[in-house]
């Protein structure tokens, strides 16, 4: 039982750590496409870790099923949303940093 507690605490800590790094990356990365990368990848990891940590604390009944459902749902939708957003940005004409430099050079 105590093993489960420790494992759960470990997973929760990792999850919060990933979430924090992702949020900091939202500010520190240079252009939108790197930012979307930092946010979405850590997002999935944080969701998996935190929900798994909570799962170990639940009594493996209906609560566990709901947690698994949330986990599945987030795992499917969150990368899809990030992908679609990046694609929309691309279609909207947003450039990454190297491309931007290139296009500025081309204009000179």
């Amino acid at each position: 039982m105590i093993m489960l507690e420790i494992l759960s605490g470990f997973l929760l800590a990792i999850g919060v750590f990933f979430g924090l790094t992702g949020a900091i990356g939202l500010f520190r990365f240079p252009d939108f496409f790197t930012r979307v990368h930092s946010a979405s990848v850590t997002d999935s990891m944080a969701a998996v870790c935190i929900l798994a940590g909570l799962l170990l604390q639940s009594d493996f009944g209906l609560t566990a099923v709901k947690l698994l459902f949330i986990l599945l749902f987030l795992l499917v939708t969150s990368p899809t949303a990030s992908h679609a957003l990046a694609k929309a940005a691309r279609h909207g004409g947003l450039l990454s940093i190297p491309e931007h430099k290139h296009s500025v050079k081309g204009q000179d």
Partner: protein
Amino acid sequence: MAELIDLVLLGMLAATALRVIFLRDLFAVVMLFGIYSFLSAAIFVSLDAVDVAFTEASVGAGISTVLMLGTLALTERKEKVTQHKSWLPLLVVITTGGALIYGTLDMPPFANPDNPVHHHVAPRYIEQSPQEVGLPNMVTSVLASYRGFDTLGETVVVFSAAVGVLSLLGIRRRREPASGLASESDNTGQADLSESDPGLRAHEVLRVIAKLIIPLILLFALYVQFHGDFGPGGGFQAGVIAAAAFILYALVFGIGSGFQVVSPNVLRWLTPFGVLLYAGVGVLCMLMGGQFLDYNVLASDPVHGQHYGIIAIELGVGITVFAVMLNIFYAFTSQTERVGQ
């Protein structure tokens, strides 16, 4: 601990509201409004109002945001700069706010169990309703049974809002509405629309994922509808969630495809049907010798009668809310197609 979480959430809420004042980009305003709704729902959870949080998350954050985006697509995206004097509104607001804060000092302290609000009918609801109505969720008991007449009124208000939106905008089924507003069941018009609006065609991944998710959403809506007696949920929330599934479909695959799944004609019948089902249960109670919406008479055992009555009226509420939300969404989105060409 709970107070700290509450305070932080309320602080974020206040910051969001304040930021809305200074933003001129209306799209950003609507995005922040979505965050605002999510935050207030989180506050409702931390204040123990799980049913309210459920409703706010689905209705407030979901439907309102979608409708506001639809309105923005039809109007303007930027607020224009004006030369309005801003000190006069500020003065009014500061005066009123000062008076209100002075007024709150007479309020009983927050969360004190001896507050007068907890001493009138609430103890009866909390202590008796599990025996009288037989449901663990007291909010559902009060909503559907003790205050059933009130809820009937709310359902009628929601119904009349749909009537209002439909009479103001109407659902357009063709691209060129030469012959006036909402035409009668016109199959060629629907075909027109599905060709002209392919939905998010460029987003292949999204289309696949949406197909995967929509059945799950509908299943969840049914769960919320019928599990609302035991946990958070009920007709209002389930109706919105079911509508959200079809809204997702119409957003991804185009409004024309949406019309083919749930046609506006079906919705036109479903909207009053829910209200009539609700009122019909009331009339049935009268016919069986009780009073209006007194479910005790519906079965030989009063608690069973209550259960039957609540299931029936929750279903009525769910159907009406579903149809109203989808109707309103159709009304806004079918306008958008026209402007977008």
